[in-house]
């Protein structure tokens, strides 16, 4: 057990934008409980330079949290050409929804595609499972 164990990991602010994905959707049609559905829904895609700044590699676990919830996700590098520092992308599903605020300012429409959250490296935590979410 090293000293590093007791240091808090630095936190980085992100805006998460969710989007649809045909492969995740196909998996969902077959079963909401399939491994592929869980794998695709629990990935967060980050800007390549942001990954260097935070010190995570593709496949590492990261903790993403805000006042609404906390999830452990798998970090992957963005597949987009344009740099997008400070913005991260997720496929919409229960993992992203765990971070969406209940407060809609009275409009009844949650901010599904504009989620503010902080991200930090995870010390060997496993990616949150579907059972842990609800």
């Amino acid at each position, binding site marked *: 057990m090293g000293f590093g164990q007791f240091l808090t990991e630095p936190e980085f602010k992100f805006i998460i*934008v969710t989007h649809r994905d045909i492969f995740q*959707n196909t998996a969902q049609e077959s079963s909401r409980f399939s491994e592929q559905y869980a794998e695709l829904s629990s990935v967060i895609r980050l800007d390549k330079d942001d990954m260097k700044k935070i010190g995570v590699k593709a496949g590492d676990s990261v903790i993403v949290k805000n006042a609404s919830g906390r999830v452990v996700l798998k970090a992957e590098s963005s597949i987009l050409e344009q740099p997008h520092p400070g913005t991260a992308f997720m496929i919409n599903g*229960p993992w992203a929804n765990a971070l969406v605020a209940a407060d809609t300012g009275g409009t009844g429409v949650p901010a599904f595609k504009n989620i503010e959250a902080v991200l930090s490296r995870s010390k060997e935590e496993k990616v949150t499972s579907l059972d842990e979410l609800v």
Partner: protein
Amino acid sequence: MDKGPFVCTGCALLCDDIAVELQDNRVTRVDTACRKGVSRMKGCVSPMPCTVDGKTVDENVAIREAARILKEARHPLVFGHGNSTLEAQQKAIELARKLGAHIDDTSSFCQGPLVEAILNNKIPTCTLDEVRHMADVIIFWGADPSHSHPRHLSMYSYFPRGKQRQRGWEEDRTAIIIDVRKSDTAVICGDKLYEIPVGADPDFMNALLNALSNKVPKTPFNMDPKRILELANILKKAEFGVVFAGLGMVYSLDSLDPLFSLMDKLNETSKFHLIPMVGQYNMRGFDHTLFRETGHINRVYFRGEEIEHGPQQSVIELISNDIIDAAMIIGSDPLASLPGPIAKKLAKIPLITIDPCENLTSRRSKVTIPSALSGVECDGTAIRMDGVEVVLKQIIETNKLTDEKIIARIMEEI
């Protein structure tokens, strides 16, 4: 059996050219549909059992228990509807009226505002068939059909050689993408991608409005005015333009006014239409049906003889403010699709799920009643994303009840 072609209920495109192969009364092969549609039509691997409190029961017992829960609740909610036929939706509205219940659907936090604006004639619209035959300028705004509606580009909006667009996408059509990222649709449609910051859609609409009025278009995110003027020129010259509005656009607009202004301006010089990129196959159908019955597309409370409507009657606010004390969910999985804190609250009240397949909500439900998969195990009608009514055919035999029949039986019990 009907030889087809059949209609796919994988999304609100309702592709009507589907061929299937059957073996032992199961769909074993699906041709023509997209990946998602094939998966929908072959059926799920975890069909929902008929249960009360987790124990397998026959459907009479489950229906009686569902009726008891709804009858005893002071503020029951009837929610879902996007994956049901028009006939089932009609019955669900009848049930809500009879119960004095709250009724809402996914359009409440999805494409509702646009469908409502179209039904109130505030936005000009057209059909997908008109798009195929006539559209020369196509805007995908906050939409990524390559993932959400995979055959959109090939059936209607970009690739087809329509009657007046014989040279198809190569020469006759220009596709424009306005999005926060280079989506897969943007990759397919070439160089007309306008990348904007998250939530900047109203700013971009205003800039475009200025460009269309021959003013210098300024944006808070410093997009080159020349690019916006170039876009305005393309739009002005359009013979038949169409905006496919995705959730990226809808969620960025606190009010639809910037969109109304833009559509009005576009229609001063050319013909522009808007079609909402509706997800679930018959979400628009529910909105049409409820609108016809109550004058509102969603968020309705049948309070005695009166009808209450507004954001406070939305599924989100009703759960958030602890109003509802029981819910019947038809063809939807709110525990997966609602914000986590709201889903946790919903899971604590008695739930009844009607669905062909097991999902997160059904596993937390007090009563689950399996239903026939529409377009495969039962027929009916539905409304496509562009407002056109489509007839669904039954492909295989089943002894499962339809949503419509289940709701009717629950009403009889009540």
